[in-house]
Each structure stands twice: as C-alpha cells, then as structure tokens.
C-alpha cells in the first residue's frame, strides 16, 4: 500500500473517481487484501462522520480490555501500600472476566469472520469457546440464522433487498415462500 493508493481509495469512498481512476481503484480493492481492508476502514469512517451508522460489531473492545488487563500488575495481599486501599478481585473472578472477554471477542470475530467463509469458520470457533470454559451464546448456524452473517448493516440491508426481490420471483418455485411470508416477523 502506498500513499497514492490511500489517496485513490479515499477518493473512491468520496465518490470522486471516474473512468480509468475508478477502474484502477476497483481493481485494487479486488486484488489487494490490504487495499480492501483500508477501503472498508475509509467507508466506515465516512459513514460515522456522516452519521449513517456506528457499527459496534467492528469495535472489539473486549480483546483490547483483555490484553490491557493481562498487562496490569498483579496485586497480592503481600502488597505493602499504606497510602491507598486497593480493592482486589479474587483470582476466580479475574479468570471468569478474562474468559468472558475472550469469549465475547471470539463472538465478534465469528460475526466478522463469517463474511467470507461462514461455514468453515464456525466449527473451530465453537471449539475455541468451549476450550476457555465460558457460557457464550450459541454460535449461529445455517439452520437458525435469522440475519445475514455479515457485520455491516448496509450490506445486510442490501442482501435483504436482494432476498425480497428473489422471493418475489421465486414464489413460483420456492416451496415454502407462503409460509415464510406469513410467519415473517419484525426480526426478519
């Protein structure tokens, strides 16, 4: 990634590109993983600045907190601090909190990760969650997911729109289309 690339991607997000520059930028995000990530970051930033969305799914605070906590000095009963009274958590509480933090971050990763290979990634993630002995929420499976396995709201909305268009035409071939519609609720 060069500074020029960054400028190009920034301009793409701002809708300032046309013609060959546009093609170049699109080629870049299509072929270069770093560029695609950068482009998504720019889009997210732009969305937030314009007040369109603030996708909390993408902010993995739990991992950061977990890392910071592990770097904190360990206070023990032997600590000889006479000037301040320090409240210390017992070891099981720390362990539980850290486990929950890890589990939550894994959950966030699961949502983000399934964007590309949902089915392949869900299985090892389940294993990891089990390994840290937490009570994390059930992982989404293909059978019970009521929402698209994507992290960005606008992508989900777009896919919903596509699905509606698809259902509109495949009423003739979708066996369960009537039941799906009648059983539709606000959550879908």
């Amino acid at each position, binding site marked *: 990634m060069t500074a020029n690339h960054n400028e190009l991607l920034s301009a793409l997000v701002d809708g300032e590109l046309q013609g060959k520059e546009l093609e170049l930028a699109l080629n870049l995000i299509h072929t270069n993983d770093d560029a695609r990530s950068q482009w998504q970051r720019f889009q997210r930033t732009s969305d937030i600045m314009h007040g369109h969305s603030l996708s909390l799914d993408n902010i993995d605070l739990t991992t950061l907190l977990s890392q910071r906590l592990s770097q904190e000095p360990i206070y023990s009963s032997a600590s000889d601090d006479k000037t301040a009274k320090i409240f210390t958590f017992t070891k099981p509480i720390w362990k539980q909190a850290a486990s929950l933090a890890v589990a939550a971050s894994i959950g966030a990763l699961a949502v983000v990760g399934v964007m590309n290979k949902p*089915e392949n990634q869900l299985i090892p993630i389940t294993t990891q969650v089990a390994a840290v002995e937490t009570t994390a929420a059930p992982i989404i499976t*293909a059978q*019970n997911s009521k929402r*698209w396995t994507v992290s960005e709201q606008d992508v989900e909305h777009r896919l919903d729109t596509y699905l509606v268009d*698809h259902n509109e035409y495949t009423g003739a071939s979708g066996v369960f289309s009537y039941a799906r*519609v*009648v059983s539709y609720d606000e959550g879908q």
Partner: protein
Amino acid sequence: MKFVWQTILACSLLVNVTAHAENDVDKTLETLGLVAKQLNYDGIFSFQAGNKVQSIRIIHYADRQVEIERLISLNGVTREVIRTNDMVTCVYPEGKPVQENHRPLGRGFPTDLLRRLHAASDYYHMSEGLEERVANHHTHELVLQPIDNYRYGYILKVDKDSQLLLQATLINEVGDALETFAFSSVEMNIDIPKQLLEAEIQGNEMTWNRKEQMERRHTIAMGQKTSPWKLVWLPEGFELVTQKSRFKAMNGAPVEQRVYSDGLSSISVFFEKIRAQHGHLHGRSFKGIVNAFGTIINNHFVTIVGEVPAMTVEKVATSIQYIDGENQ
C-alpha cells in the same frame, strides 16, 4: 353437488394413478396437484425453520370459478394473506406499516408443490417411502433426492385419500431437515362459509395481481437488450426464468436481476453497477437456508442469492463472465 363432482374427479384421477404405476410418478404428481387445488379444507399447519416454529391456519375454497386461500398467522405478529385466484391481499395490523417488500408471491401454498414437481422431475430421483399418519390422515411418502449436491431435496407426505400434501420437509445433502411444514389438523371436503374467507383483522391492506405482474415482467424481459453477462456454469436443469432491470431506491444504481430455476430450486443473480459509498458482500453469507455469494466483476457488484447449498451460489458466481457486445 360440489362434493360429488370433486369425488368423481378424485376417483378418476386415482384410477389414473394406479394405471400408470410407479414408472409414471411425474405425470401422476401433476394430476394429484390439480386434485388438491379443487379441495375445500380448513386446517392448521406448523412451519419450522431452524429453531423457530410458526402456526398458520389455512382455509382453502374452490369451485368452478374461483379459488380462495386464506392464511392466518396464529402466533407472533398478526397477519393474514388472502389469495383469490391471482389477486393476493396482505393484511397487517392497524398501526403497523405495510411491508411492501414482503410480498408472498406464491402460486398457492401448499397445494402448488405437487404440480411443480412435474416440471422438476428430471433433476430429482423420486421414490416412494413409508406410509405414515399425519394430522390423523394416512399418507404415503415421496422422497425427492436431487441428482446432485447443488440443490436441496424434499420429503413429502401426501394424504392417501385426498392427495393433499400434508407434510413437506426440505433436506440438505446429508439428509438434515432445513425447513418443515406439517399439518397438525385438517378437515377436508367441508362447506366453507363465506365469512371464513374474509380477513378478520382490521389494518393496513396491500393487494396486487400476480397475473398482471407476471405479464408485466414478461413484457419487460422481452423488451430488454441482450445482457452483457454470461453464466458459464449453472446446475443441470437451471434455466433462465425471468430477468429485469431497475433502479434501486437506495442509491439509484441500476440493478439487473436474473432468476434461474429447475422448477423447484432457484437462484437470483444480481448485477449492480458500483458506485461510491457502497457496502457489499464479498464472499459467502447466509440467512436461514438462503445462501449468498458476492464478488466484483467489471465494475459491478455481483451477488447470487438462493435457497440452494452454499457451494452452488459460489460456483455460479465464479463462472460469471462479462461479455459486453457479444450475444450469449
């Protein structure tokens, strides 16, 4: 009189079934579907998808002139769908906005399935299964195993007397149930009072004509220019059912949609010109049994959506070519 007529029709068709025996299952299915559409019945079926179960009451009335079907959701949000021939009305509770985007454009449920099996019979191995009791009716089982792993299969249980479909299960390639509907109770060949066919809930209504829509789509499809897109690979039997172009309200970008189907399973392919400020799917995603795959080709976001296995949408996506200026 109506009952007599239906009985005669059903008997004649059942004789027909016997005559054709097992080697003519596909033709029989079409006939049986027709019989089921002539029935009057009032029943409750459950629809299960994943961990969600919905109960729906269905009242079906038919005479020589009209076929009316009323579906009422019995739990969750109150909702009714009434279909009178090709006219479909959706009724939502007062105060709730009409969801125009959630249009049940089916061609009848669940009576329509058996008829459509006929068209798709080349792509599913059909076999008879065990006899079982469903909603206090004796049924015979039809197992539809797809010829490949690019589409889902079905297990159907059909009432031996009336030929009404009483239970259907959508199954994946390893035989797991993805969606199921099953009657828990149903009364057939009964008189249906007119008031039972009218919506009970007061609220917003939305009505549309399926036939007009289909004709309009056909006209649009015929008038379209040759698409610059070519799908090099599709599952066997999938053919172009319809295509259309429109401008999406969100950003005004033109979107071309193509629908391919083998008669039962189907996919839609969306081609959307890229504009800035787009979020779009890259790779796989799913929602319930619906799989999607997104990619970028020639400055377009290309997305495939359908009730087919994940590998199907991915394989279709990777086969798409942009051939501007050429004919397919």
